[in-house]
């Protein structure tokens, strides 16, 4: 049984912008100049977490155009291949939104496992396309490290997103 449908955007006003704002903020937070060495090996894909959660819980509040824009801006600001993040985030968003009934009915642990699989797939495809695009095999260990950290930290962010989602539904 589906617990809660996607909340109607029109009834929420500015609150309806929360999912987009949160994901956009996470995207910007990812690219700040952190004072930690070798961060490319463990910096989590925060945008990925946000897109996955909100695509499952409130897909209407995180429309395709929003996901696309966030991906393009992230690529532009990081200097990476323009359009790559947008492409992969759109695919992830479509998958998560298509399976949302199934993912909502499943327990949190199962949803986390699905996220883990998607996260490693995302990282592997990101690595493959980037390597082809740049014409050189890039560090596979770095993307896997980031994917592992993302998967490991997801429950923490899931909790924060759920808190916001409850506030939206109240």
């Amino acid at each position: 049984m589906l617990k809660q449908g996607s909340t109607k955007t029109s009834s929420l006003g500015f609150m309806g912008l929360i999912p987009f704002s949160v994901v956009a903020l996470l995207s910007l937070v990812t690219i700040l100049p952190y004072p930690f060495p070798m961060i490319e090996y463990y910096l989590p894909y925060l945008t990925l977490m946000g897109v996955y959660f909100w695509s499952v819980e409130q897909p209407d509040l995180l429309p395709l155009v929003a996901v696309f824009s966030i991906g393009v801006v992230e690529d532009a600001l990081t200097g990476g291949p323009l359009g790559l993040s947008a492409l992969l985030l759109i695919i992830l968003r479509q998958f998560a939104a298509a399976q949302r009934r199934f993912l909502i009915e499943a327990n949190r642990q199962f949803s986390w496992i699905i996220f883990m699989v998607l996260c490693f797939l995302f990282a592997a495809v990101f690595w493959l396309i980037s390597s082809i695009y740049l014409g050189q095999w890039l560090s596979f260990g770095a993307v896997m490290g980031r994917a592992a950290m993302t998967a490991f930290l997801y429950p923490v962010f899931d909790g924060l997103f759920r808190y916001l989602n409850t506030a939206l539904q109240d």
Partner: protein
Amino acid sequence: MKLPKGKTFGAHKHPFKVGRKVTAFLFIVLALFLLLIGKSQFSVVESARARLGDFFAPILNILSQPVVAVNTALQWGEDLSVAFNQNITLREENQKLRAEVAEASQYRIDNQRLKQLLKVHESDHRLVATSSVVADSGGSFVRSVLIAAGRNKGVEKGHAVINEMGVVGHVINVGRTSARVLLLTDLNSHIPVKLASTGENVILAGDNSSRPKLLYLPLERRVVAGEKVITSGQGGVFPPNLQVGEVEEIDAEGHIYVKLNARLYGLNYVSVVSYDSALLPEQNQSSQEVGSPKRPDVVAGD
């Protein structure tokens, strides 16, 4: 979402769902199109990047303030932890340096006199701007940072970027209020350097690791760990004699790894410098004829 009367889920394809699939497909095509034009229409994409950088630089500047504060606190703690031992070392060094200063000032005077006698034309570099770093690519594929200074501060593509420790990288894309700096560690970074001890010209090539490699060293040349690496000034991007780093390791396959002087993670502030490389003899002659004055804002000539 309410369904039209008389219809239920699963009975027919929902028109909005079909619409969403089409929209998703269009966005996927658009993203692929962006990837393709990023390769072929590089200048158009770079211009778009610069505009987005301009728009987001102030926002990132605000967001990075807590990170800057943490960075400063960590640096302060690090400094404090080594202050006692460093103080003893510095006192000893200070005594030695005092003796050397007198000797060095005499060398400097002699050097200037000899250069005047030989009419040596020296290249100049000047400080263009000092800026905060507002974003770091942080990714596994690109080593670059975004700074909050662009054409409005006189920054141009190709300008060298340094900090108090040494060379950081060079500007590859400039917007009105922001610029992207390719770090020395990036895969695409190849800069002309030389070994300080002998002046042999080599190339410092990034490979996305924290230690770039030295390339094109003469086969007979044997390098030892600890040799200083400085910019050679060739190529007209980096002024000569800027500190880059030192040879850290030579592996069994002969790869020479350089430990950079500048710490490239968590950069706070950097300086952009321009370099007026030595003119060709005929240009030099004409510039002397018109009596072009030396720029007043030149910060160093060596």
